[in-house]
């Protein structure tokens, strides 16, 4: 209920709500207040113009048109509700019933075909036909419109519930041996309700218009009964001499219909609402520097905050990341540790509610010097950094040819023509070792296997031959064999073109096989940085725990789970983020800890490591 109230908080929603309340009043009190004025003829005052007492004037028999409009609100609305809600109820039951016939595919497809066919007829035509056959009357129109609305609603309910029925929780209920109706009632209907309520409201709005239309065509209520449609028809014959007699009831129909439709839409939108929040402030951006050509990217003290409905959260807090030319840097960490946010910040791909800060952030400028205006800067960025996302299936558009998707960014940013772009796509597909690239570019993603698709995504990221390729869990969804193939490809691209790669993963073993250097992230900070070949002997308690939790082919002993859960970015502890789960925690861990060097290329953010360093004097002191 609170949900529903929340829907009505915008100005148009409030206006729509007020309209409906007024109409409801008219429907209830219209008859006792205006009944006489609406029904009793007064021939002497026929066809009067609008006045204060009779704002829409009077009709051919001298009856007050306004009073007739108000009085007929009740019956009109009642019929609209009956056919709209009735159709929604019947449609829901029908749709769900069809979707449940999985065991009888023939019956199901027959029913679906009948639905599709009846959808092909215009609803209003169906309504007119049925009403005419039943003998024109108010009830005939109600039934006709209801019947006409059923197929659309049934289709909606069918496709919705078909997708719910396929969900695992319904399978689980079946596996418990529950009866069909119980499964339907407990598992399917609650997940369907919101959509169908919205659809029922939309249907009512449509029915309102249709009821009026049928009466207007003399197919609905017959004299002496009347509704908005007949009042409108009576007024329309004099539209030039007395426009208000027609415009008045027409306005009632339109405004009421629009209000119901708007509210239905608002309820629906609220159901799918996602918070949209403005940016919290200016974000930092990389500067281009001419100079050390060996360093592709250098960022210090990178922090990212998001404005959320619960206030600002900062999932990345002070990350340093340096990538040299030709280097593969791995970032490992658990879900929510900030790996993706870090990499998206570097690629400048964060949503507008994000705010990025950095102490220093440099990238090497192109030979022709630093780009001047914003547009050329964006172009430059797009060419410097390529991105490969985790899920090949969702990052490819199933309806677009592969070649086009690969070359999209080159067309946008480099203004390449069609054939040039196509040629480039063929070249890149060849580079990611797809056989017969000139044939493959014309195919659609579903014609590729999982591993091939991931190559396509990599080719997309490589289109501009970027200096830096960011690959966010590109192998997580893949089989070991395909993963092996993708890792080999990344290695090959790195050796051949000297492209640098930032490779993100939650799998220590994958990172150790591919990368030169590894950053371990926890709670939005880097807790350990080490050469990949030293991953078997990490020093930070978190990295050690992660290692002990990773199954290997020789694991026969128990896996050591890490107790507790990773910290929520909204509530990071002030000191070491791992403190709540660390077996070595002490009072000193409540103070912020920073990375200290414990060996060549090996830095650890832990008070224990700092102790060790103080004990031995032969380790290098960090700058």
């Amino acid at each position, binding site marked *: 209920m609170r949900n529903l109230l929340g829907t009505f908080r915008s100005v148009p929603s409030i206006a729509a709500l007020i309209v409906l309340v007024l109409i409801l009043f008219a429907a209830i009190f219209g008859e006792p207040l205006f009944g006489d004025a609406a029904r009793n003829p007064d021939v002497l005052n026929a066809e009067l113009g609008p006045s204060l007492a009779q704002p829409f004037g009077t009709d051919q028999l001298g009856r007050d048109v306004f009073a007739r409009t108000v009085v007929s609100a009740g019956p009109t609305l009642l019929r609209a509700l009956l056919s709209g809600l009735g159709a929604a109820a019947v449609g829901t039951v029908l749709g769900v019933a069809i979707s449940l016939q999985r065991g009888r595919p023939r019956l199901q497809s027959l029913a679906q075909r009948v639905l599709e066919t009846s959808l092909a007829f215009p609803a209003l035509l169906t309504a007119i036909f049925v009403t005419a056959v039943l003998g024109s009357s108010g009830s005939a129109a109600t039934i006709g419109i209801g019947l006409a609305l059923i197929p659309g609603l049934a289709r909606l309910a069918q496709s919705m519930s078909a997708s719910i029925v396929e969900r695992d*929780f319904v399978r689980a209920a079946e596996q418990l041996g*529950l009866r069909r109706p119980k499964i339907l009632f407990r*598992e399917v209907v609650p997940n369907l309700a919101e959509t169908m309520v919205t659809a029922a409201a939309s249907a009512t709005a449509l029915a309102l218009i249709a009821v009026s239309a049928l009466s207007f065509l003399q197919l609905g209520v017959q004299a002496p009964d009347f509704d908005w449609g007949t009042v409108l028809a009576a007024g329309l014959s004099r539209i030039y001499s007395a426009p208000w007699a027609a415009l008045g009831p027409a306005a009632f129909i339109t405004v009421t219909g629009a209000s119901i439709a708007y509210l239905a839409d608002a309820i629906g939108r609220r159901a799918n609402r996602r918070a949209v929040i403005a940016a919290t402030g200016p974000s930092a951006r990389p500067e281009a520097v001419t100079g050390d050509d060996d360093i592709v990217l250098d960022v210090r003290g990178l922090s990212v905050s998001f404005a959320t409905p619960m206030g600002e959260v900062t999932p990345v807090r002070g990350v340093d990341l340096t990538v040299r030319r030709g280097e593969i840097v791995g970032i490992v960490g658990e879900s929510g540790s900030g790996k993706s946010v870090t990499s998206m910040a570097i690629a400048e791909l964060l949503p507008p509610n994000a705010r990025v800060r950095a102490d220093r952030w440099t990238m090497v400028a192109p030979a022709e010097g630093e780009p001047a205006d914003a547009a050329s800067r964006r172009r430059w960025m797009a060419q410097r950094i390529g991105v490969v996302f985790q899920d090949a299936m969702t990052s490819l558009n199933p309806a677009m040819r592969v070649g086009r998707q690969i070359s999209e960014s080159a067309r946008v940013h480099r203004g390449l023509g069609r054939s040039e772009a196509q040629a480039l796509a063929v070249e890149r597909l060849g580079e990611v070792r797809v056989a017969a690239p000139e044939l493959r570019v014309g195919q659609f993603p579903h014609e590729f296997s999982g591993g091939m698709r991931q190559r396509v995504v990599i080719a997309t990221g490589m289109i501009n031959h970027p200096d830096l390729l960011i690959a966010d869990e590109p192998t997580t969804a893949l089989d070991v064999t395909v993963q092996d193939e993708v890792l080999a490809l990344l290695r090959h691209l790195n050796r051949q073109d000297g492209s640098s790669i930032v490779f993100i993963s939650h799998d220590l073993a994958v990172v150790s096989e591919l990368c030169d250097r590894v950053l371990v992230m926890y709670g939005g900070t880097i807790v350990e940085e080490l050469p990949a070949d030293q991953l078997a002997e990490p020093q930070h308690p978190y990295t050690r725990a992660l290692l002990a939790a990773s199954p290997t*082919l020789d694991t026969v002993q128990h896996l050591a789970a890490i107790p507790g859960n990773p910290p929520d970015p909204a509530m990071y502890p002030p000191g070491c983020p791992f403190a709540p789960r660390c077996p070595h925690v002490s009072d000193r861990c409540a103070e912020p800890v920073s990375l200290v060097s414990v060996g060549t290329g090996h830095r650890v953010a832990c008070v224990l490591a700092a102790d060790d360093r103080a004990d031995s004097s032969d380790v290098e002191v960090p700058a």
Partner: protein
Amino acid sequence: MLRLDDVTVRFRAGRGWFDAVRGVDLEVPPGGTLGLVGESGSGKSTVAKAAAGFVPVTAGRVFLGDMELSAQRGRALRSARRRLQVVFQDPYASLNPRRSVGEIITQAASTTGRTRVESERRTHELLDRTGLGARAFHRYPHEFSGGQRQRIAIARALAADPEVIIADEPTSALDVSVQAAVLELLRELQEETGVSMLFISHNLAVVRAVAQRVAVMYLGRIVEIGPSDQVFSSPEHPYTRTLLDAVPEIGGRPGRTRLALGDDIPDPRFRPSGCSFHTRCPVGVRCDPERTVCSDEEPTLTLGDHMVACHFPLSVTSRSAVNGIE
């Protein structure tokens, strides 16, 4: 406990048909765990679905204890299904978002004929046992992380007092540390309740950690099956070997010689002749033209405790031959 006897599952594909699972024999030992591994598209999940009755078996039979599950209909089937529970891969799709955790588990507990009070008591026990805590009872699935949701799903499965649990990739949506906790939980619960388990995963290291026996599937067929120790340390089938070789390891495995696959897994609708693996096999006819038997004749599983379906199992092929073809 759970036994699949020559099970075939046939699906319609466009105008024709293809066998997603072909003549599979499997047995999940009482109180033990059988692991099932293979690439995506090999038919692992179809085996699970056929065993659980989500898809009808085209040929062959599924037994639960002495009862033929695949022959049950109507009420008998409904009451039989309870004895075999499933833990699904996606913890976000397997819990009804509109029902509280307590309702979800209590409903499962009540299917065994417990009264309402008894079911709720059992639910509290399970919430406690799976580490979710009593407060979880009135909360909704969206309030929990992936790992916690998987615990809820495990609690639901156990609430029905099943004899067999089928776990289809139960940890592949989870983080490593969470995965370890869920695997440990499953193992402890198995020790306590004696439930048997069919554990499906494409992650060989995970299967290694939980299963006493392991079966390897390729294009709808079991190509190797045996005790985990033996299959993992001395695989007989070239496919098993290539799978193991593809597993990344921290620091790499010393002295590892890798057998690499030729190609992607073929479309199961167009299964290669003879041994289905011959288009990719690093020791078969693709690499040794004299071994024409690979493409002509389909090998059958040998007999014994460690079984393999290959004309040239690796222990027979000399090591030098293997290394030479690499």
